[in-house]
Structure formats: structure tokens, C-alpha cells
């Protein structure tokens, strides 16, 4: 299971996916609206995921 943190919603959860792209689809996250940090490193969405990975979705939306 991958540990997930969604910044905009301040939400933590566990999920299963083979890569970041699949994880985003499962969580209904638009690739245009986040940058992805995997194990504290910025990662492109085609990166594979391993069990026990930590994935953070950081919002790109400006505050105004």
C-alpha cells in the first residue's frame, strides 16, 4: 500500500496502484492541478510505485 497525502484537502490515505498515473486516476486527481512528490523527490507521473512509497500531491493553484 502507498501512503498518500493530498495537500489541498489536507487528507491522508492508503491506496494501491502500479504507478503515479494510475493512482491519480483512482483518486480523481487532475495532473494539471498538482505536482507529485514521491519519497520526498519530485516525480513525473509515469513513475512506478512500490509498496511503502510515500506520495504527496501538492496543489499548484494560486491563493489569489
Amino acid at each position, binding site marked *: 500500500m502507498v501512503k498518500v497525502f493530498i*495537500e*489541498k484537502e489536507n487528507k491522508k490515505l492508503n491506496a494501491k496502484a502500479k504507478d503515479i498515473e494510475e493512482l491519480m486516476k483512482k483518486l480523481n486527481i*487532475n*495532473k*494539471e*492541478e*498538482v*505536482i507529485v*512528490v514521491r519519497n520526498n*523527490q*519530485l*516525480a*513525473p*507521473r*509515469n513513475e512506478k510505485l512500490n509498496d511503502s512509497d510515500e506520495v504527496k500531491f*501538492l*496543489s*499548484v*493553484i*494560486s*491563493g*489569489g
Partner: protein
Amino acid sequence: MCKNCETNPVILLTNNTKGLCKSCFFRYFERKFNKTIAQFKLISPNERIGVAISGGKDSLTLLYLLNKLKSKKRFTIEALLIDEGIKGYRDNTIKDAKKFCKELGVKLNIVSYRDEFGYPLDMMIKKLKMKPCSICGVFRRYLINRYSRKLKFNKIATGHNLDDEVQSVMMNQFRNNPEISARLGPITGIKDNKKFIRRIKPLYLLSEKEVTTYSYLKNFKLKFCECPYNTEAYRINVREFINKFEEKYPGTKHSIINSFLEILPDIKEKFRNAEEIRYCKKCSEPCSNEICKACEIRSKI
């Protein structure tokens, strides 16, 4: 692997299955920033450029890059921050802005609604039956222009990025507002009018995601925070719509902007004399009526 140098990528660009590593991304980003300034002739040598900052990632990235470019292109910069008076939001971003300017050695000018209009935005919205964004937008534009002139800036740079502009273009299309679109573009305002300070948008061709990636990799350490009054529902819906489209059809945002830039000179020409420029009877700021919007709102407080 990075498409240029075979190291680990950090981002996939639009229409690319191969990514860019950190240093190739920095090169790509900064080249695009500098090219936008050159292509649209945003800055000329010896100009004094004001940089409107909020303390958020767009404006601090803008400030960082203009500071980096200023010696090479022979211009000077100073930052201008408008403190609307939003507790729990702007006070936090002001701290980030102060720290950032100090680190870069850039002079920061802060102008507040409280000092200028007597009340912070938090109090104004209790007194007025208006949407916070309607009050804030008018006062912010008013103060940016007034203080840019006072501080003798030749131009004022803002952190508007590709996503902001695409949203504005589409909102004007959906609402049939071509005359408002005529005021968009990488450089706006009236040429040769001393009362109007022209605005430039050097991040015009860089997406919100690219700017966030840049500021993250540069370690600007900015926390996510959203204005508590961000209730511009129409823009939020347009943003979601465009992002869904971009995800399905990569390149959509650039296509919208490229076709907009193609027709912009014609729209500008068509609406050039649509609104006569007048000067407010109360404050002498440029406006389209006898009294400017800022004075009109101020009289109701």
C-alpha cells in the same frame, strides 16, 4: 530518463512522454521566461521595473528571475506588495515576502488598505454589501497603479501565468466580453499615458504547474494557502473545465493562447477608442467615468 541528459526526470512537459531532469528543467524554464521578455519587448534597458508581489509562488518566482536578469539586461527592480488586511492569510504571505526580499536584497514597498482607505478588507466586507473580490480587485489595481507612479516605475510586472491568462480569455469568450479581452496580453495598459503604468507578464507562457515545479525545486518553501474570500465561482469552474480538457487533449492551453495572440492586435485596434479616458474628479486617477470605481466604493464605506 531526461530527454536531454539521461538522468532522473522530475517533470513531464506537455505532449512529451519523456521528462526533464532538475537542471534541464531550470534551463527550459528560464529560457522561456527570458524569451517571453524579449519576444514581447516587455523590458527596455535602463527601465525601473516594479514587481507586484503577494508572497505566493508566482510572484516570488517572478521576483527571483527578474532579479537574476536585471544586471544582464540593465534594468532595476523594486517590489510592491498590497496588504489588503486579510487575517490568517495575507499576514502569512507577507512574512514569506519580507524574508524573500531580504534574501535577494530587493527593496520591498508595502501599501495597506488600512492606511489608504481607513479599513482592512476584513472590516470593509462587513460594512459593504459587495463580493470581497469586487472590492479587493478595484482597490488593488488602484493602489498598484498609483504607487507604481509614485515610486517612479516605468512598468509593473505581475505574476500572471499561462493558466491565469487562458482562464481570462475563455471567461471573456463565454460571457461575450471581447472589449475586456482587448485589455489582456503579455503587456497591457495605455502607451504614452503618464497616469497609467503599463503592466507586463513575464510568466505569460509558463503554466501554473511549471511555476510550482520551479519554486519547489528552488526550495522557495511556500506553504499552500488560499484566500478565504476566493469565491470567484465562475473562474473556478472555467479553470476545472480547461484542466480537464488539457488532460484529455494536451496542448490545449498553448493553443488557446497562441490563437488569442494571433487575433489580439485586431481586437485591440477595434476597441482602441471604445472607452474615453477620463480622470476621476475626486482623486484624478484615470478612469472611464466621472468618479473612479475606487472612490465610488470608498464613499460607501
